[in-house]
């Protein structure tokens, strides 16, 4: 118990900057403006229209500097992925925005996240959705993220440390699922826990390098189709098509 307390205190020291929140507001606003502009510029390629106002508002509210290690807080609002320890990263804000947009989460929706990481994506989702359930496989990361989210007052996020393969059956079905953990295949139980009409987003690539996004749309008859989205305004042929 004592050890947990010490860990919690250490995390607060590392991650939370209660007195510096204001300093980062301008940087965060600038980051959101850049991400919005980038999304608009990429919309015809990524298949995602301009960022929804709800996603923009969430990005404006969630303080990314609280979700990165203390020594990286000053670069927290650069539009780049950052290391968070245990060989994991916090995604590039542009990718976070795009994935959240693709999930088309509505107020009151129930969302499942596999791969909590530092909890940033869960916090963004919590700003938009009714309830967020997030599972992390790396115990220290999951515990840290859980503590952080509750200390930041996210009452509609539930976190759990464990195997995300079987989802969160007690809370299923979900309107949207995001799988940021590396997976060789889409776990069938997750697809089962997605509501008909629901959307699942999976970024593919490796740490620091999201190659493309996969959007799985579950039709009303239970079958699924996927869209593979290159999150960049880039055509592979010179001169374009």
């Amino acid at each position: 118990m004592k050890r947990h307390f010490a860990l919690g205190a250490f995390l607060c020291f590392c991650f939370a900057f209660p007195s510096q929140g204001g300093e980062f507001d301008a940087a965060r606003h600038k980051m959101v403006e850049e991400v919005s502009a980038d999304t608009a510029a990429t919309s015809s390629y990524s298949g995602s229209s301009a960022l929804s106002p709800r996603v923009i508002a969430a990005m404006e509210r969630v303080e990314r500097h609280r979700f990165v290690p203390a020594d990286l807080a000053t670069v927290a609002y650069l539009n780049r992925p950052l290391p968070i320890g245990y060989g994991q990263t916090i995604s590039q804000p542009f990718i976070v925005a795009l994935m959240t947009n693709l999930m088309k989460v509505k107020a009151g929706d129930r969302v499942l996240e596999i791969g909590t990481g530092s909890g940033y994506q869960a916090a963004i989702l919590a700003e938009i959705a009714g309830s967020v359930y997030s599972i992390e496989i790396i115990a220290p990361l999951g515990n840290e993220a859980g503590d952080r989210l509750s200390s930041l007052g996210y009452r509609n996020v539930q976190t759990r440390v464990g195997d995300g393969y079987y989802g969160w059956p007690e809370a299923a079905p979900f309107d949207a699922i995001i799988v940021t953990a590396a997976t060789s295949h889409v776990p069938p139980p997750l697809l089962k826990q997605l509501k008909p009409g629901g959307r699942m987003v999976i970024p593919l690539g490796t740490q620091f390098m999201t190659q493309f996004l996969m959007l799985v749309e579950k039709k009303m008859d239970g079958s699924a189709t996927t869209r593979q989205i290159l999150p960049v305004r880039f055509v592979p042929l010179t001169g374009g098509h």
Partner: protein
Amino acid sequence: MPRPPFIAISLLSACVLVYEVLLTRLFSIVLWHHFAYMIISAAMLGYGASGTALTLLKEKIAPHFGAAYVLTAAALAFMMPAAFFLAQQAPFNPLELLWDKTQPAKLLTVYLLMMLPFFCGGLGIGLVFSHFGKQASRIYAFDILGAGAGSLGVIVALFIVPPSQVLTALTALALLAAAIAVVELKMQTKWLMEFLVVLAALVAVAMPAMRVHPSAYKDLSQALNIAGARVVEERSSPLGQITVVENTRVPLRDAPGMSLNATMEPPPQLGVFVDGNGPSALTRFDGNFVPLGYLDQLTSALPYHVLAAQDHAKPRVLVLGAGAGSDILQALYHGSANVDAVELDRNVTGLVRQRFRDYAGNLYARPDVHIYEAEARGFVNTSRERYDLIQVALLDSFGTASAGLYGLSENYLYTVEALQTYLSRLAPGGMLAVTRWLTLPPRDALKLFATAVTALERGGVENPGTRLAMIRGWKTVTLLVKNSDFTAPEIAAIKEFSRARSFDLAYYPEMRADEANRYNILSQPYFFEGAVALLSPQRQDFIGQYKFYIEPATDDRPHFFRFFKWNSAAELFALREQGGMPLLDWSYPLLVATLVQAFAASVLLILAPLALSRCRRTLPGAPVALYFLAIGFAFMFMEIAFIQKFVLFLSHPLYAVAVVLCAFLVFAAAGSWLADHWQGGRWQAANKVTLAVVAMGVLALLYLAIMPGLFQSLIHLPDAAKIIISVALIAPLAMCMGVPFPTAMTRLAGTSEQAIPWAWAINGFASVVGAVLATLLAIHLGFAVVILLAVLIYALACAALRGFA
């Protein structure tokens, strides 16, 4: 005056060479790519900088030669583990190279740290040469003998103990070299010898093996972070460090790109990692095929369904890259009558044969499975069997492949020549199947398709499009190359297989555009359009206009995973904040960064100290500078190109580095000795060099012409025979290459001795930069062109030599 410390110098030289080869091994474990080019460059930098230091400090050191020599040997002993230990502390992360501005500085730190042991070694060897100048040729012989023995000895050592323990042994050996030097130099400090021997013994017995920390972003590190993960087996050899991970709480569940329509979960599996990359699955098998149903839900199962349409109910299958057996299980699941499988690394097959035999259901001892521990190309070349299916296994991991981690490595499995060989071993109606990870925009798949088209054309097929089919899932792509036209029932099988699993048709003969892009929807049907373009007369235009490099890979340019193009790099870098950065191969910018730092470091550490010292007054004329610059570049070009060229023949980069380095060293030294003792009055320096360069040119051209065929016919021989053949091939060439340097040095000694330090320095500078530049040029132009360039540069050196000899 005591005689030179011959034994000590042999040992010292052996230590330095072992360390050079060992570092390539250690870096493969810590990071991804084998950093051979960077390590050779760092070694050259250490040697070059030590030459400059010796020039400047010679007079001060000379009175204390004995102590200085012993000190450098002891410093080498200390620096070898220390430099690697410190390099591991520098948080260099290649994946962040393009994101984080501090990464180039961290890379430079690693490079300079790696240089330090070579500086110590170079200083020790240089001290002996300068102190016993008149016995240089005998010293040289012992020096090279040690180096040659070291570069081969390290391979043997790596079979016996893991790399970290070789490093410990090396530390003890360098201390022993220092102790022996005390005896050989008849120094009065007996206590020093005793101290060094005791220290060496203590290191050998008590020094804990250094922990080798793989990058936190490697697959193994990530797997071990998961609760419940534990290492159940570790094995090491020069081919790689094998780690087997078990996790009963969070099972591995490896089913790469399994159809979204599938509902089953893979059976229990162990993760097999090679140098921390992977995993490939060692699947629990008890003879019951039902739990293996997931293997029918992968794109790689396609060829079995096509063969079934031919009434090939029990196909004969060859798996290239047996690994821990997934592809063999897939073949058996689909009723194969006989599965031959090739795997290079005995340690991997040993897992299934022995350690986990029961877990794997004694898979490799089944009467219908035959495992061959061999190099894939060599095996296919000599096999007399004809197969219904040759399956090239997907053994690299998705993460490493998609992040461009292999951009600089040679891969001889996916070249035009390789595909031609595979096709020639197919039974009538047989097919080759290659599965790759899906990348967007398409890279691997289209390059593979282009390679297959070229292979078919070279085999005399007029219309390659009738023999190709390609499908894609959401994560993998499978290409089929048949040795006859696809029939209507086969095409129907391809369609049905894909439809049932929601895989997309990317290409089959006579495919309509509206059949593409149905399940895994892309903004454009890139794969279909690319395949059609690659079969059209406008193929070269398409390849030229494509923003990734998808020119077919060949044995001369076997960098299959190089997709980098300069013109798209600028565009992607500009789009880095809009998701463009991950599409840039980081390995290529890393190579360029290494070149820049090699240039800067060698100017600062080799040339600048001379230019700022009294030597600035003895700056040589342009011909001398040009000559030593040229032979430095040419030697490295030749050496690096041959190392890479021999990777195919010797089956592994580490074997190639060790054998080629050893052969070049020993026989260049022999050439130097011959040139030195060749005292014909009419044979002036220029004539000697010209003759050597002409002979070298003839040999190089001859090798370029005969080597592909020679390798093809001899690749099946045992390793020992291949090593002897490689040495025999390199020997005459290296002997010629050993002539230009000492011949011109002797000439300078007679005419303008004060220019000698500059000659050393300029040659050192060219060697440092040349090692990296050769790799860069080989990727762009191919090995043949690099070898030809080396010959041309040698010819230029001949012309320059006439200016001062």
